[in-house]
């Protein structure tokens, strides 16, 4: 189990997407998100993109106003996770075209579908954009 959760949070600390790969109760999630976001958003651009928090290591990256935070365990390759975030953004961008925060909000379920293709059981299983997007495009067509 490498990846424990994927969060998208904007600069105001509002959650835009949350996916946990281990079950946490609503209260635990709320507390965790609050702490992590506070910690990461307070960091400057010069500081490194990895923050330790409790048992997690958070790898985060900012795109415009939106922060992508991925919680991993200790044995994960942080740089690779950083690029995984970028791959996710690229994939969204390919699907939505110039993806912005609003796209994610309007199509929350689609972003989740993409994540479902990319990460299973906390492992990165698919990095081929065509493969990631294929089911979503097929669903779009059929409905």
């Amino acid at each position, binding site marked *: 189990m490498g990846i424990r959760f994927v969060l998208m949070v904007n600069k105001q600390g509002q959650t835009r997407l949350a996916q946990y790969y281990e079950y946490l109760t609503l209260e635990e999630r709320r507390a965790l998100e609050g702490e992590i976001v506070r910690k990461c958003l307070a960091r400057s651009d010069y500081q490194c*993109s990895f923050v330790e928090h*409790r048992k997690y290591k958070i790898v985060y990256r900012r795109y415009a106003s939106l922060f992508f935070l991925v919680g991993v365990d200790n044995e994960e390759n942080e740089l690779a996770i950083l690029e995984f975030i970028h791959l996710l953004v690229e994939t969204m961008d390919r699907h939505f075209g*110039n993806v912005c925060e609003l796209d994610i909000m309007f199509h*929350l*379920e689609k972003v989740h579908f993409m994540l479902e293709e990319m990460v299973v*059981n906390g*492992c990165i299983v698919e990095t*081929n954009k*065509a493969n990631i997007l294929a089911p979503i495009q097929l669903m779009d067509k059929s409905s």
Partner: protein
Amino acid sequence: MEQLKTLGRELAMGSHGQSKEFLDLIKSIGEARSKAEEDRIVLREIETLKRRINDADTPKRKMKEYIIRLLYVEMLGHDASFGYIHAVKMTHDDALLLKRTGYLAVTLFLSDDHDLIILIVNTIQKDLASDNYLVVCAALNAVCRLINEETIPAVLPRVVDLLNHSKDAVRKKAVMALHRFYQKSPSSVSHLLTNFRKRLCDNDPGVMGASLCPLFNLVSDDANSYKDLVVSFVNILKQVAEHRLPKTYDYHQMPAPFIQVKMLKILALLGSGDKQASGHMYTVLGDIIRKSDSMTNIGNAVLYECICCVASIYPNSNLLDSAADVIAKFLKSDSHNLKYMGIDALGRLIKLSPHIAEQHQLAVIDCLEIIQCLLYFMFSYAICKSNQMMISVTEFLLFSSGLDKKLPEADGGGWAAKDWNSRDPDDSLKRKTFELLYKMTKSSNVEVIVDRMIDYMISISDDHYKTYIASRCVELAEQFAPSNHWFIQTMNKVFEHAGDLVNIKVAHNLMRLIAEGFGEDDDAADSQLRSSAVESYLRIIGEPKLPSVFLQVICWVLGEYGTADGKYSASYISGKLCDIAEAYSNDEDVKAYAISALMKIYAFEVAAKRNVDILPECQSLIEELLASHSTDLQQRAYELQALIGLGAQAVESIMPRDASCEDIESASSNGGCYDNDSDKDGDTNLVVIVLAATMEVVSKVLATMVKVVVVTIAIVVDKNLSFLNDYVQQSLERGAQSYIPEDERIGTGNMNNFRSHDHNESLQHGLRFEAYEVPKAPVQPKATPVSFASSADTVPVPEALSSRETRHISSLGLTSEAGSSELKLRLDGVQKKWGRPTYSSPTSSASDSYSTSQKPTNGATQVDSATAVNSKVRDSYDSRKMQVEINPEKQKLAASLFGASTKPEKRSSTSHKVPKSNADGSQGSKAAVVPNELAVEKTIHQPPPDLLDMGELAVTTAPPSVDPFQQLEGLLDPSINSGIAHNVGGTTNAPDIMGLYSESTGSGGYSIPVSGDNVNFLSELSNAAVKATSGETTMTPLPQSIKGPNAKDSLDKDALVRQMGVNPSSQNPNLFSDLLG
């Protein structure tokens, strides 16, 4: 206009028909400006949903929307459990999109042991058998999230079938479903593990990549069973690295980097400590390290993984050399991310034993010194303290000049120092560095490292991490301390600043060290050490708010050695001790230590035949404690009082000077200092005092009776008091009555006479020496403290002492009585009530633990009372044995239920060919990727593709350290608002975007934390640059120079979104900023 808007909205949202209501909800959430506002919106939404969602007539499309709104409710931190059942229902739907949305919602809402899961398992089973592979995939997704140990059998056969499905997407997910089962319950799929090997050779690279996840787990659980796969992994990795996979798996020109990383992780496990397996890997590792592009993040990610692998497998000098080179590059990088990875990687190389390092002429040694220098600089130790460091610095400079431009020596130091200090202090980096430092600490550098660690420890406020650092400091100091003096000073610092966070054992160790000294026979040095400890403590006492543990150490040391060197007078030290007891008057432990210390001081005075003059404040402290509610404190106070009244010789033998580690064997098992633990050692202490008190009394007043008491004492704690043997012998020779076992002790009833008459009740509880005629329920020893307290108030000192002692006797007497078989039944009841199956009764548990814990000193002093206790002990022993007998049975049962770890049958490696670049048409369609290279080159001189394009807002406005939540709160106040990147109204908006844009174009010097992002730009480069402008084209004509061909598309899209009613001039312009802009 209104019509146009509606039209636009429909266009924008396509045929999915999201309702205006949904759009409004998203819009209001997006524009919410505080957590409170967001909460209000969500609460309103919950009310709406509760009303609507139960409506039976809701069309399915509408229901899907409701489900997504429920997702929002939960995501934003509110309970949406009222709608779970509808999500479950939606999984039953035939329409794929609805079904998948239903599954998604269920996986997000429910844990795998939720009651509703049972309603879904059936649907999953059906869907796994569907003809539509997308339905099967949706179901497999749900399997990976919702199936728990109990429900695995329900879907397992179907999932196994799907491993051979014709669609690779299905095979991939089936592999992951099996992986999940393995994680949840390894035994459930233990017979299916060969499937993972098969899928490693799947024709589809995606399936192959997925199979690496379970294989990684399998290999880390049992590497030996998978050694045969080493060659296959190496071959696959080689092919991957040689671009043999379809181009679609490339990421930033790197061939399938995520697969490479996973493979390297597996190889690291397989090659660990295995020379032969490692031998296969050297070539491919060398190739990858050589080929990897160290200019990109992803290239560095693979490089880092290579280093980890090199450090883990059987060492190869060439590889280690190149690994060290890469690490040096990382460390010297401007990017903190790379520095972080470099420090981590260095830590891994250091783990290799020095022996191997030498043998392979490692560059690691150089690295070590480099890092030492870096640390010196990092902590602004610009001035080298010793020659050794000077050499390291020089080497470091040589090293850097070899790889980098030549730096003059003086400048070089400055350069490095600047590098670490001029930037923001980066906590993540510091922690990582300390982690590394910890690994490379030696006795030669321990002082510097621990010093820095302590400074850092003082500076942080996170208790969790502070504890961690403190324990590391202690560990290093204990292990490498160059001198005891340094050790004590270091420990003082740790205690002073994190005393409440460190383990109490550390304090005991410190006290023991001070007491034992160097362990050599160097008394002068020892006493010097103690004097310096005393002096430092006297200095520290003045500090306010010291942690309790530290105060205990201080009190103990002052008591033991405060007057030892004659520098400080007894009254000075005792005054200090009183100050401590007063200043921390609500800390009983500290007070207990203080009063014991006082006692020692006075004892030493008495023993030295000096006049003890008790300071008034000490007197009042003693009096206060005599009436304390804590029996422990009270006891100590009485002991003190009793002791002062004794003669010099007696005192000398009770409280020998500097003997904390020597005389009392039983005490030494308790941490070396008999009174360093106020609770456990109180009894030992007491016995010594009582003995002394009685000795006096023996010769004077109550000769015979007390002799019995004394003898009894010796028996009571026989295992403890081997040192009493002589005395007992003496007493016997002098005509004292010999010990009478409890059961024969009827005649000693006259003991009662010597107690004051009006204590009838306490007599019953406290002093009962005559055996009971008929076994009755034992008097609860619990009650004795009460009687003790009441009698102690009135009886004269010696008597109080002896009566206190009898408390022990009586409780022990009870023990022996409890030994009779008749009582056993009754005690069984007690046992049940207390829930301690091992012990039959509290008394027996006491005796039991006594006999076991005292074994070392047991020896020849085994006396009758022990045998009296014996039967009881045996009882409890038997019951324990019973338990022991049950355990293996249970274990067997458990093993048969869960543990049957049938080893995966070995399978000779099959053809491990990975399809060479599939000339599939599918990849051809991805032409979009191709132009990238050109685009990248073209734009390489343009501002770095700015992931942070909104960052300038932060730079110019809110400092990053502002708490985002406070910001949110502050948003209610318009004046703060405008300062924090929230533009109200379109007028302010346009210039803002302009500013943004110009800033991003002119930000060539703006350093991005992740270097090498230039290449990130891949497919979107062409239109990326337009992004910042596109939102506002209609209002603010901007320079078009870098607009790409896709500008029109984005403009169209933007127009549509805006018509929808959400537009950039509304309250949150950020919603529109292109993420990849």
